[in-house]
């Protein structure tokens, strides 16, 4: 029994970007989300933030609260960006995100194999058309990343950008149909990143699994919050030593209080042989 189910979040700036993703992931609109448009299927969420880093940051914070302020979550920003020196339509993940206003940089941890190249992303307040020597130019990533890493670990936060404008394909020539088509072209890669993030969440879930009978035992007597933490730790130790926690019930059957329960578990554990096998 995990503490909370892991959530995975997609944040996009524009409805046309969402349009490319919604049918593929089977996401349905939530009717009770008036501030931002939010879509969901099971533990996968998508929020349309609007354009700009402040909007993106607000959408992350809003979604986090809407989803039950669950820090056991991953975040993926999908959008478009300009680049002067790569192929139109290419997909990139961010290995560095620099805020154009503050000059402050963030470094997403690259702890899984990505299905695409990586590049530095510059978040700027207005579209860039002169395309400096390197980097992707867009308007949301720094706000998105800064806020998402307030709620989860940076290995679980990433940005994917499709190159939408270059020297040869100026920003004025981008059409909604082009955006939809080119994001659709990378759906499998986007799904692969989501799966990699899910694998990391699964590893954390295993590590934070609460023994099955914790709730039942916690309800037998009145445990303080601190005692509940102690109970979880003791049950984990029990599980590590015996492989399951079924035998706990009989060990504590004669206990009359939470304190006695904890002490009995401690004593029983203490008397057991210790091995690493």
């Amino acid at each position, binding site marked *: 029994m995990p503490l909370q189910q892991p959530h995975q979040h997609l944040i996009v700036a524009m409805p046309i970007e969402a349009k490319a993703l919604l049918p593929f992931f089977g996401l349905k609109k939530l009717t009770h989300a008036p501030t931002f448009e939010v879509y969901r299927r099971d533990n996968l969420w998508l929020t349309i933030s609007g354009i700009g880093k402040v909007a993106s940051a607000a959408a992350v914070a809003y979604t986090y609260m809407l989803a039950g302020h669950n820090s056991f979550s991953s975040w993926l920003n999908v959008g478009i960006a300009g680049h002067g020196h790569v192929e139109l339509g290419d997909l990139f993940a961010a*290995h*560095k995100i620099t805020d154009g206003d503050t000059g402050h*940089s*963030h*470094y997403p*941890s*690259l*702890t*899984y194999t990505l299905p695409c190249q*990586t590049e*530095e992303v510059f978040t700027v307040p207005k579209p860039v058309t002169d395309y400096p020597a390197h980097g992707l130019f867009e308007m949301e990533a720094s706000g998105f990343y800064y806020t998402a*890493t*307030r709620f*989860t*670990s*940076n*290995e*679980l*936060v990433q940005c994917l950008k499709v190159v939408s404008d270059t020297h040869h394909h100026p920003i004025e020539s981008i059409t909604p149909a082009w955006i939809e088509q080119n994001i659709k072209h990378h759906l499998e890669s986007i799904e692969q990143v989501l799966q990699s993030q899910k694998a*990391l969440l699964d*590893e*954390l879930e*295993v*590590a*934070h*699994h609460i023994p099955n009978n914790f709730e039942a035992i916690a309800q037998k007597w009145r445990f303080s919050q601190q005692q509940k933490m102690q109970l979880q*730790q003791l049950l*984990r*130790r029990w599980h*590590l*030593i015996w492989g399951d926690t079924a035998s706990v019930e009989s060990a504590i059957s004669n206990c009359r209080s939470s304190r006695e329960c904890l002490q009995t578990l401690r004593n029983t*554990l*203490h008397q057991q*042989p*210790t*091995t*690493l*096998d």
Partner: protein
Amino acid sequence: MIDTIYIEAALQGHPRVTDILKRYPNARRITCERYSEVFNPKAQNFRLQKKIPALILAQKHKGFILPAPDGYGIGGAYNYYFSHMLNCLYDCRYCFLQGMYRSANYVLFVNYEDFDQAIRLTASQHPGQSIHFFSGYDCDSLAFESTSGFASHILPLFRERPHTLLELRTKSTQISALLETEAINNVVVAYSLNPASVAKSLEHGAPGLSARIRAMLKLAENGWKIGLRFDPLIYQSHYQTLYLELFEQVFSALPEPSIHSVSLGPFRLPDGFFKKLTRLYPDEKLFAGPLSSDNGMTSYEAALEEEMIAFCKTQILNHIPEEKFFRCTL
């Protein structure tokens, strides 16, 4: 092995950086201003990062040589340590680095010449006195040697200063740099050792016990002094059998004259580090052992710790003279 390399902007074009980058032509290269931008942010998970750690090439600006903590030493009048690298290629579950750092990325400080200068200065402050330098406190001294070349770089400094002693603490079998040079009397290659089954369970990615013994033997045959560091001692109900077997394996393989020193160290971590480790790895059996907290440190219960130390010391002294034995009380 290394997919991503962060490079401090000021080090672009540094010859050592250029050499290292050549070794990893396919790694993505990312420029940062200071390594701390990548290494220090709060929102990082050591366990997840340890899956594919990145390499950060950085410059150290101060604190090249630091006094070793009290209780850490093998008989020197003055004890210092230095860390040319933060974090280790191995993933030992008991290691304090997991509790100390937020990031599992490797930081390599490439300005070796500043370490040289600090070693020269520190050594000159204690003329004619016994001064020991310890490498491998925040990393493994040799595991990354094929890339860093740090040990090879500093060995000549110690060859020229026979009143000093250098300990290279390691679990690595990357010893070719040492075998290619003439042994230095005042350099000790110190191996951290645990019973084979403990190494297999807890020392992920590190060479197994047999490989370490073979490496020690090769070094000894080439004239290098060997340190044996039974540290940290790990408790299991049958620990006496396991450690007896370990001592037999090690001492029967190594000629006694090649053994410079033997030390024993208990499993001890500051409470804060221990809590972080148990949060990272709640499924680790090591942390389900008979541990307790005292004075801000988590360790085996005092009586058990003393029993283990006493048992191991008695057994070790069957193999070496007492003047070669040291107890780490860190």
